C-alpha cells in the first residue's frame, strides 16, 4: 500500500468521525478515501467499538430507563462480539493493530463526550446519551462505507467491515426510535 496519502488521514477521517462527535451534524465524507494501512484500519475499528462499549457501560450505571438500559446492553454485547471477531482475525492474519492519529482523535472525542454525559442525570442524560449514539453510529457507518472499506487491502478484514455495516445501521435506527420515544428536549452539545 502506498503511504503517499497518509498525511490526509487526520483531515479526512476527522471529517467523518470527530467533527460528528464534537458537533451534532456529521460532516460529509471526503471524496477520496485516505490511505490507511490494514493494521491502522484494524486499530480504528477496535477503538470505535471499545468507545461505544465504554459509553454503554457508563449509561448502564447512570440511566433509570429500562429501554435505554436494554439498548446499552445490546451495544455492549454487539460491539464486544465484533471486537472478538476482529481480534481473532488479527491473530489469524498475524496483524498487530497499529495506533494512529484517527484512533487517538476518536478517543479524545470520546473523553469530551463522556465529560458532558457525566454532568447529566435522569431524562436529560438519556436524551444526551441517545443523541450521541445516533451521531456516533452515523459517523461510524459513513466511515466504514467511505473510508475504511475502500482503503482496506486484506479481503477478510474488508469482509468483516462490510459484515459489520448492517449491525451499525440497525443500532442507528434503534437509537433513533428510542430517542424519538423520549420526546423533545434535545441536544446538549455532547
Amino acid at each position, binding site marked *: 500500500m502506498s503511504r503517499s496519502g497518509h498525511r490526509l488521514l487526520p483531515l479526512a477521517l476527522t471529517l467523518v468521525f470527530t467533527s460528528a462527535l464534537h458537533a451534532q451534524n456529521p460532516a460529509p465524507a471526503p471524496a477520496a478515501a485516505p490511505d490507511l494501512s490494514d493494521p491502522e484500519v484494524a486499530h480504528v475499528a477496535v477503538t470505535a467499538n471499545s468507545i461505544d462499549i465504554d459509553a454503554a457501560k457508563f449509561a448502564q450505571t447512570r440511566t433509570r430507563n429500562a429501554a435505554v438500559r436494554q439498548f446499552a446492553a*445490546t451495544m455492549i*454485547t*454487539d460491539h464486544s*462480539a*465484533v471486537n472478538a*471477531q476482529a481480534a481473532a482475525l488479527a491473530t489469524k492474519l498475524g496483524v498487530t493493530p497499529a495506533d494512529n492519529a484517527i484512533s487517538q482523535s476518536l478517543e479524545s472525542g470520546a473523553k469530551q463526550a463522556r465529560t458532558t454525559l457525566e454532568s447529566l442525570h435522569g431524562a436529560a442524560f438519556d436524551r444526551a446519551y441517545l443523541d450521541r449514539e445516533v451521531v456516533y453510529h452515523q459517523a461510524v457507518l459513513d466511515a466504514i462505507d467511505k473510508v475504511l472499506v475502500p482503503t482496506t487491502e486484506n479481503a477478510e478484514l474488508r469482509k*468483516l467491515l462490510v*459484515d*459489520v455495516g*448492517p*449491525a451499525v*445501521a*440497525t443500532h442507528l*435506527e*434503534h437509537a433513533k*426510535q428510542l430517542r424519538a420515544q423520549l420526546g423533545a428536549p434535545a441536544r446538549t452539545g455532547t
Partner: protein
Amino acid sequence: MIVWLVLLLAVPTAPPITHTVEIRGMEFHPADLTVAVGDTIVWINRDIVPHTATGTRRKWDSGQLQQGDSGRYVPRRAGRAPYTCTLHPTMQGMLIIRKE
C-alpha cells in the same frame, strides 16, 4: 369402526415440515413465512452479533443465538404470529400458521 379406519387411512395428512429462517445482515430471511400447525421453524444466526427470535404475542423465545447457533419453535395453533429480536427491536418477522 372399520369404516372409520378406512377413512382415516384414505385421507392424506401432510407430514410436518421443517422450515429454516436465516438471520443475516440484521434481517430474518424470509421475513414472512407460511407454515402449518405442527411444522418446525428453525432460525439460524449467520451474523456476527447475537440475536433472538421471540414471539411478540405468543410466548416463545429462542434465547440468545450466537453466530452459528439455531433455535426452533413448533406452533400448535393457527393464526398470525409476529416475532422480533429482543436485542434489535427493529428486526421483525411474521409466521402465518395454517391449520394444516
